[in-house]
């Protein structure tokens, strides 16, 4: 579709522009993967050095919040993917509803995360004086817990802003969802944020819970 209204300089061809946006977002996702890879590497090193501490600490995270949030985020990826499909099929109204749903689910994720953090703080699960688990390495687990979930939540927030932008910009011109490459780029980013969580979930919530 050469819908030249959506062409941005320096592009002369809309399909080329879309391809470039997709390539660009994939390159950016590469950098995001490396960002989290460093955190995962650090976590793995310490898990190897302090297995007992990590297992003891892993039992204290809130499995209910964690599992519910995982389901929410995965569903939001589903709605995001469906939004992409419907936009491509030019069913823009449906696409916008699905984008709303994605936004709502993402927001719900953050809200539940907030409640979870409140519970964690209530249980004094912040390394420092008053930290309840004395096994060496447990405090390290929670350092990584706070940093990893915090950075992930920051990325979710960024994703929400991007999704909101899709919703707002397409308000008066729903065809923009197909004409611009933004929808696809946002979707790819959102899926990455979901995949990072899928790795975080077992590391932070299932560790230490596999046997009595």
């Amino acid at each position: 579709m050469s819908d030249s209204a959506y062409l941005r300089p320096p592009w002369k061809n809309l399909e080329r522009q879309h391809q470039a946006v997709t390539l660009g977002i994939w390159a950016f996702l590469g950098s995001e993967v490396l960002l989290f890879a460093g955190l995962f590497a650090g976590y793995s090193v310490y898990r190897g050095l302090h297995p007992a501490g990590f297992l003891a600490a892993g039992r204290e995270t809130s499995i209910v919040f964690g599992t519910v949030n995982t389901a929410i985020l995965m569903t939001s990826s589903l709605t995001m993917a469906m939004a992409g499909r419907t936009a491509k099929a030019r069913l823009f109204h449906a696409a916008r509803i699905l984008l709303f749903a994605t936004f709502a689910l993402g927001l719900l994720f953050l809200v539940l995360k907030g409640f979870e953090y409140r519970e964690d703080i209530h249980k004094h699960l912040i390394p420092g004086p008053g930290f309840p688990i004395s096994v060496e390495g447990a405090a390290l687990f929670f350092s990584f817990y706070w940093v990893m979930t915090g950075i992930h939540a920051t990325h979710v927030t960024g994703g929400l802003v991007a999704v909101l932008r899709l919703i707002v910009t397409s308000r008066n011109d729903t065809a923009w969802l197909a004409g611009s490459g933004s929808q696809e780029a946002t979707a790819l980013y959102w899926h990455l944020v979901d995949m990072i969580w899928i790795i975080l979930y077992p590391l932070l919530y299932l560790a230490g819970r596999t046997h009595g």
Partner: protein
Amino acid sequence: MSETLSAIPDYLHDGTTLRSWLFTTDHKRIGILFALAITVFFFIGGTAISIVRLDLLTPAGDLVSDDTYNRLFTIHGIIMVWFFLIPSIPATLGNFLLPLMIGAEDLAFPRLNLLSWYLYMGGATFTVLTLILGGVDTGWTFYTPYSTMFANGAVLTAAAGVLISGFSSVLTGVNFIATTHALRAPGMTWFRLPLFVWSMYATSLVMVLATPVLAMTLVLVMAERWLGLPIFDPSRGGDPILFQHLFWFYSHPAVYIMILPAMGVVSELIACFARRRLFGYSFMVYALVAIAVIGFFVWGHHMFVSGQSAYANIVFSFLSFMVAVPSAIKVFNWTATLYRGSISFEAPMLYAFGFLGLFTVGGLTGLFLATVPIDIHVTDTYFVVAHFHYIMVGGSVCAYLGGLHFWWPKITGKLYPEAWARFAAILMFFGFNLTFFPQFVMGYLGMPRRYHVYPPEFQIYHVLSTSGAVVLGTAYFLPLAYLLGSLWWGRNAGINPWKAKGLEWQAPSPPPHKNFPVPPHVPDEPYDYHPKEGPLAEAAGDVS
């Protein structure tokens, strides 16, 4: 004015308000914005180290206090690495030239490009804030637990500054990658690209993949220092060596971010001023990519004495020897390009020659450092300081200045004064060697780095080094003066004063906003300075 199609203004005059500059999406203007910023930082970082070198004239450290000294060398490193070298060639010359060299109107994502600059400036703001708060004394390497648990000083703002500017790198890399893939003019296939474009592409791969690891490492340092979360603190189970692994996993590829663009520039300069096709073009491309890839796997050579296992040392040593090979190939090929060429000695070529000699010295001394038993002796001494300055200053800065001079006519439409430029280049070469060669010697003799006071037997070397620094520092002011002066008093450059090949020389000097009033003609071969077969056309730089 330049010979443009009458009424189209060039990019410098296409809107003259401050707003038109601060909200520009023109890659050429953004290149200028970066150039201005990095020049300011270059002189701040240079001032810091001038004070250091003055203090080192005497062994007793009687110019500044220990603490001030430590803060000075730290800020020199932070500024020069992240606020000068890393953005230098990519964000100034790369930004300006990449679209021109491939025949495009702009980068793939012009607004993202502007965001890159603002992120750089955001990081720069934190760095200036760090200076105002009295600086930081951890060394540019931020080793834990000193940086997280012991240092007094603005560690958080320094880390924040580096962290934010890192995103600038990532976005520039993303932009360059997409641009190279998707915006090449018809006929500009991958293996017709100038080596400068290839070097930008390879550098971008490293910027995109390595920088996030630094970002995350700095976040962890900030979390430990600011929020008290145990991460690297050994008394709470942390491992300070983990910091070193994470830090160097980025910081080694970072040095390739600093040298690959320089190699790209040198290829352009040598081909033009030897009037010769670059020897072994495809090997040059493979070498660039090989350096970028292998460079990710050698970081442990910074940690041979850190306590890591002998097996790790062996592996990293071997890979470090391997990464030297593609660099050597490039030096051979640049030299071979001169064979049967028609060499002239304008300032850019003088810088290219300087690069060849100095980068080779720097690279060869890398072999010393890759050899574990030698490294055990000379690591953390001035030998290492000399090694990396030969590469980063003798290599990268030389190439940056060479490129700046080479493309100055295209960027500004003016010619710089050639005699002054040659004088400055030669002065720099001598000043540089006088500054840094004695450091190899005193490093071998045991003079540790980051030392404020030192045993008197090293004084002669420090005096030689500081004398060189005075010459070198003076030499750096010359281009600042005559390049700026040329803007007002320089002769107008024509469209192609060097009669160089490359699409950028088909655009007016300076180019208009959209670069090419007429679509450029893409030749069948890059660097077609002479026909492949048959006798070379002589002298006057003419090529058919």
